[in-house]
């Protein structure tokens, strides 16, 4: 029982983890992206379609990454170079993503593929209980955990990471010290959008190997909320994503066991829980030093520099 729940937790948390990591990279550069929900859908559909036609899951994931990157580039261009309103642009991206995937997804509805298989890690997967639940997943799960470490090292141990953080904290100062603010921001939006797309591809290639309209079902929004919970920190994002994966796993388990509770009430749980977590995360932010990037959501215009 615990084994099954733990396994389901990680599986349900992984798409959220990819999307949250993507959003963290973008927000660290100072750009809010409320289009994560749309990007996940673009990733899910592209990943599925390419995997279906080429019979290669790897190509599917790559295609998801690049397609979401292309969609995210619209947001990046508007927010970075045209200095447009990031909130409206992000919402537009979500609408655009929902619309365009419903149009192109017509032919993909009802098809199935053979999704990612479990790849046990030698030795570790032999550990009782947690071996099968934690060390016997598909490769994307391992990749997402590796990504957590990479992003942490990138942000805090590399020169590029330092530049990226400075662009999000104080773009004018970064600009003065010779950092190309716009380039950093635009690149961050591209990479972050691509990661959100992989989160979507995880849904259609590993979680449930088929495509249905609107299959992200609000996960993109939960990811945006998780960024605040994670305090813009990739290791905390791992904890946050699995916490939500856990709620989802318990909720699905309860539905499967046939409790007397209505499935519609159980469906509310992840959203209610996100709001509660968000309240506590914000209260904590208000008290101490704030890890929120100082220039988050503020377009940078060199001519306005004081």
């Amino acid at each position, binding site marked *: 029982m615990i084994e099954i729940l733990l396994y389901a937790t990680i599986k349900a948390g992984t798409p959220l983890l990819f999307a949250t990591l993507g959003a963290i990279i973008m927000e660290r550069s100072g750009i809010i992206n409320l289009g994560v929900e749309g990007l996940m859908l673009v990733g899910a559909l592209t990943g599925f379609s390419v995997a279906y036609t080429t019979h290669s899951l790897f190509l599917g994931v790559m295609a998801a990454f690049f397609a979401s990157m292309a969609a995210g580039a619209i947001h990046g261009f508007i927010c970075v170079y045209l200095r447009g309103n990031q909130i409206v642009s992000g919402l537009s991206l979500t609408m655009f993503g929902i619309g365009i995937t419903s149009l192109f997804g017509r032919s993909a509805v009802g098809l199935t593929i053979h999704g990612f298989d479990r790849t046990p890690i030698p030795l570790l997967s032999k550990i009782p209980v947690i071996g099968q639940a934690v060390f016997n997943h598909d490769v994307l799960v391992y990749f997402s955990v590796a990504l957590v470490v990479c992003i942490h090292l990138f942000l805090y141990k590399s020169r590029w990471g330092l530049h990226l953080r400075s662009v999000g904290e104080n773009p004018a100062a970064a600009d003065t010290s010779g950092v190309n603010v716009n380039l950093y921001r635009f690149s961050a939006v591209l990479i972050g959008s691509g990661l959100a797309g992989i989160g979507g591809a995880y849904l259609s290639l590993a979680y449930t190997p088929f495509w249905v309209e609107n299959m992200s079902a609000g996960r993109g929004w939960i990811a945006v909320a998780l960024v605040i919970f994670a305090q813009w920190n990739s290791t905390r994002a791992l904890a946050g994503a699995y916490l939500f994966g856990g709620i989802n796993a318990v909720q699905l388990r309860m539905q499967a066991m046939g409790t007397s509770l209505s499935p519609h009430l159980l*469906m509310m749980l992840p959203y209610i829980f996100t709001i509660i977590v968000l309240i506590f995360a914000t209260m904590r932010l208000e008290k101490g030093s704030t890890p929120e990037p100082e220039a988050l959501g503020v377009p940078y215009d060199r001519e306005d520099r004081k």
Partner: protein
Amino acid sequence: MIRFEKRKDISKYFAMTAPFVSVLLALTTAGCIMLFAGVNPLKAYMGMFHESLGSVYGITETLVKATPLIFTGLGVSVAFRMKIWNIGADGQLYMGAIGASWVALFSGLTGFAAMIGMFLAAAFCGGLWASVAGFLKAKVRVNEIIVTLLMNYIAAAWVSYLVYGPWKDPKGFNFPITQRFSPDIMLSHFMTYRLNTGFLLAVALVIILYILVEKTIWGYEIKVIGDNPNAAKYAGIKIDRSIIGVMFLSGALAGIAGYVEVAGVQGRLQEGISQGYGYTAIIVAWLAGRSAIGVLIVSVIMAVILVGGDSLQILMQLPVAFVNMFQGLILFFILASDFFIHNKISIRRSGK
């Protein structure tokens, strides 16, 4: 070398034409995407405009769809005034519909009293739903965008719970719908069409909101809070209370949209009564530029696209969600056009 310079005054000519140019460019881009998806865009557009504007029936349907957009658009736009983002009009609409349906089915009121009761219950439920986000924003500074948005999913799940569970019509052949409301508490219709007095109510609210926001001290206060919260604080305006109040009003307006949908169009509570009106309302409010009259005009334009998009489902088997693509593209172009309203392009030889 291409350079962008800030204009000293914004270009009035650009500002006037930008929304129309944006819609045209969005339609062109969407046309290219449709071609790519194997859909004939000319046939699609002809169908869309013919269905939404080509007959009396089409025009009444357009106004039926414009009605909830006006209510929710006014709601979002009032919150905008204070720089608060209410992305949850959809959920507030659902809660309003639940409130109105409760009065209609279970309160025992009849006739005119029931109608008033439904209206007030809808406004109250929608307002209360939105003020949760308002309260959290005012007291704890929780991001209202995420809270209002997540509450949409919760509200939609409430409706599902009710229509599949306790409120299901026992004689409804197990369909997830409530009983039909009695005809005497429904809004009256224009001839045999679905157009109802809800539209007139919407127009009346446009006028009321215009006066409230433009001509009263309260309207001035919320504008000051939006533009300069520090100044507002020193002027003695109670910001926290205003945030909660404005969110209540914003949600109440969306709730009334829910009332009109159940009492004017559907005649019962069921799933999917909102076709994402709350999201379209953001476009409406953004395009209307905080003006109540603007909300009315833009709502009708958006309704043309919605009705047209619906008709494509039947004419060309396109999914309903497809109209979201138009809406996204329109907003993208509007955002881009803002840049050109505020900046001018000059081309210079490089090196000089």
